[in-house]
């Protein structure tokens, strides 16, 4: 049956050795009220039929492989070299548990140590952890890390131009501790850094942290240097939240005085897979490392003095500290961190930078064309707001964005995100992302489609 290997004879012998008459006998000591009859679920299937069944279900999806994906907003359609999928298919890696036994887990441990180096350096920080669940939960952890460091609970100030789902996740996360964050509305699509700084100052002794998007939800990138100074002067920590993919090309938060950098690492080689599994990352100054949540891999030596790696600073973690732990996280997303490792290793610094350049140039191209279209009468585009972006930007439409996007979809284009989904006042806006993967033909098709939408 399935992957249970027992033959009838083996089962009989084993039951006899265990002193049981039957399989059911092994459960004889359970109160009978707890036992259930047959479950009302479908019959099991052999692999042949199951494959066909799953292909049928898959065929009901129209994925970004079939459609031209201009949708970003926290999940990005990048080119992932096939080597990443090949390497991640190694049974030694993906069928291992958390590396509790370092002697036979040097593979995963060294890869995670290398990943920590790569992701910390990309964020422009000293250290990073071994991974968290996703961008939303990483932000919750970052805020709680700031609470532990400052010893304060209130005074959590959030940029209103953060991903709405991250904001919601943080509300749930710190709401559990009775803390209500204050949210500072953006100016259009740009984070209101001055208002964030003012709010931090006004919080006085209560200030824990300010969390700002970089790039923010609308794709905006603003220098955070001044904000970092202001927040530090007010006695709090500055947290930057954003995809790390652009940081090979643009100034990373760690270079601008940001204390904790966190977000979603999916863009670094992890498929979009309908929202997960992804890889939350968190990086910081080394002074904060003991406040970090989750696993950390450190370098050490074995009895013979050979360099090796092991999980370290475990005294922060739940299995030792229990209710006093820095976080409850146990299982993280190591395999996705390894995917990010393979992606970053294969691309290298030049490849990541080059991909970034292509995305920026292509996004600029589409943005320019849409802007030109806004001057023409029949098009669906009203205007294209001006602000500094990387590869994602907001477009204002003449009719509800939802209608425009539907027209694009009919042409095989995932045209972007209807911002009215989160804010009724933005129902005539859509968020458009252009990664390096979008071809000039796809960009032209996009322009042609909105010209008449």
């Amino acid at each position, binding site marked *: 049956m399935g992957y249970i290997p027992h033959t009838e004879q083996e089962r009989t012998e084993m039951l006899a050795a265990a002193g049981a008459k039957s399989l059911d006998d092994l459960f004889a000591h359970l109160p009978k009220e707890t036992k259930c009859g047959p479950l009302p679920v479908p*019959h099991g299937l052999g692999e042949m039929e199951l494959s066909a069944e799953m292909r049928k279900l898959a065929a009901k999806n129209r994925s970004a492989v079939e459609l031209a994906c201009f949708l970003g907003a926290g999940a990005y359609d990048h080119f992932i070299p096939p080597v990443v999928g090949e390497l991640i298919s190694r049974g030694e890696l993906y069928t291992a548990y958390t590396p509790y036994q370092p002697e036979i887990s040097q593979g995963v441990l060294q890869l995670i140590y290398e990943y920590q180096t790569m992701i910390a350096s990309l964020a422009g920080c000293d250290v990073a952890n071994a991974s968290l669940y996703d961008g939303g939960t990483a932000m919750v952890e970052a805020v709680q890390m700031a609470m532990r460091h400052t010893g304060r609970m209130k005074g959590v100030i959030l940029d209103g131009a953060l991903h709405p789902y991250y904001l919601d996740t943080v509300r749930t996360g710190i709401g559990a501790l009775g803390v209500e964050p204050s949210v500072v509305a953006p100016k259009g699509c740009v984070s209101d850094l001055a208002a964030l700084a003012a709010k931090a100052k006004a919080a006085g002794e209560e200030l824990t942290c300010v969390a700002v998007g970089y790039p923010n939800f609308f794709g905006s990138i603003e220098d955070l240097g001044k904000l970092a100074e202001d927040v530090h002067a007010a006695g709090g920590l500055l947290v930057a939240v954003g995809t790390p993919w652009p940081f090979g090309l643009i100034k990373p938060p760690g270079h601008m005085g940001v204390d904790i950098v966190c977000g979603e690492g999916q863009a670094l080689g992890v498929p979009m897979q309908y929202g997960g599994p992804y890889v939350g990352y968190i990086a910081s100054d080394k002074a904060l490392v003991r406040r970090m949540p989750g696993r950390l891999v450190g370098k050490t030596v074995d009895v013979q003095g050979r360099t090796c790696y092991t999980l370290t600073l475990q005294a922060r973690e739940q299995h030792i500290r229990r209710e006093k732990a820095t976080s409850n996280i146990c299982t993280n997303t190591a395999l996705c961190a390894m995917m990010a490792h393979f992606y970053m290793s294969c691309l290298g610094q030049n490849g990541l930078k080059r991909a970034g350049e292509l995305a920026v140039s292509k996004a600029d191209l589409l943005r320019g064309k849409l802007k030109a279209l806004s001057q023409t009468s029949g098009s669906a585009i009203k205007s294209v707001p001006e602000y500094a972006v990387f590869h994602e930007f907001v477009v204002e439409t003449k009719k509800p964005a939802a209608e425009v996007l539907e027209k694009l979809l009919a042409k095989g284009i995932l045209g972007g995100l209807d911002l009215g989904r989160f804010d009724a006042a933005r129902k005539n806006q859509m968020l458009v992302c252009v990664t390096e993967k979008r071809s000039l033909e796809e960009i032209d098709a996009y322009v042609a489609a909105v010209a008449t939408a």
Partner: protein
Amino acid sequence: MELIFEKSRKGAADPYFPKEDPAGTRKAADVLGKGALRTEPEDVNKRLALPELSELEVVRHVLGLCRRQVGIDSTFYPLGSCTMKYNPKINEAVSRMPQFAGMHPLQPDNTAQGTLQVLYELEAGLCHVTGMDAVTLNPMAGAHGEWTGILLIKAYHDSRGDGKRRKILVPTAAHGTNPASAAMCGYEVVAIPGTDDGLVDLKGLEAALGDDVAALMLTNPNTLGLFESDILKIQKMVHDAGGQLYYDGANLNAILGVARPGDMGFDVVHMNLHKTFSTPHGGGGPGAGPVGVKKHLAEFLPVPFVKKTGDTYAMSSDRPKSIGRVGAFYGNSNVYVRAYTYFRTYGKEGLPEVGKHAVLNAAYVLAKLQDTYTRPLKHPCMHEFILQPTKEMLAKGVRTLHIAKRLIDYGYHPPTIYFPLVVSEAMMIEPTETESKATLDKFVEAMKKIAKEALETPELVINAPHSAPVGKVDETKAAKDLDLRFCACE
């Protein structure tokens, strides 16, 4: 092995992207403006440190590291409490189909009907498996499920104006995530003692119960591998005191298709699909920790969720009393694609066979080893069991750590050791149902040989492993001379 950074060759080319800018585009540096560009600072630690290598060099680096790593595909991996069962390859193949792997989480529902159907049907299946009324797929691991579940309980008490319940009871034997999750929800954690038999101490529980208790978190089978035989009594005691019952279902494999937390009267349960439902553990994750609840808690479940109308599926956030969002999107969807594939493999007839054979394998190995090692608990085991070194072994200086490391020399991954904390020198062995008798017999033989060595040549055991890629690791140095990353200055 050398770090990948030490192999890096400056300027190594990659074969992925065109070197020329696309026709008609502006240069990225001009678009961004000079001030926005990354420049490398004085501090080497803050400089970009991605290696520059050929793809082949990266492949060899990783495969070199694979030789220093074992997974369940490599060897028997009886890691207690972790359910290291075979990860069927069809699960991987299905999850990697572009129609699943290539789905953007914010795509319109009408382009995601396949995934939505999988998620919807898996939710229904998990309801049946646990005996609960509703399931959320949002939580991304067991601990995340616990945290979500405790928030649901909090929302429930709050909705009834019962805000004085500030305590969560957690047995001393519980996994560390239980108290940590409760604390992250702002609760005071009260430890409940266990009996010498390894079960919840009913007197201790009685003493702790009161109108300030929000819930009891119970793992069943518990972390010692025993079914809590008083579970119905426990359930009644807690409910009578106005508390809710949280079921840590990490050990669900033991009772899959045989017994259900819902039928035991529990209000909330989380499952670890990266254990029970065969999704691979990935060297530390990702997992999936869906949560099931009884009717009275369903309105508080997190958003979003999948809604079915006629034959159409849609993602919805229409749940006014919801605790809110617990992650960015809808949980680890592609882990669920694997879990669903597994669920359909076994189905009605097969699921109970999983639970039964998991227990059979554990009972068999226990029967074979209980005279060689000390068996501290006399209750019948479920899917896993605890052994200790005998007094004679301990007298020779051979401890659990040594036996575990010696198993490495025999080609096995060690069991879980020193967990649960309430049993000294614990070796927690969980074979799972996917191991054959032949494999188990060889393991038993190795354990017996080690027992003999422990008495006759204790040094051999104490100094193990002898054949691993590295020997015993200096954990103290790792924590003292903290080094969490490569630095180009080294």
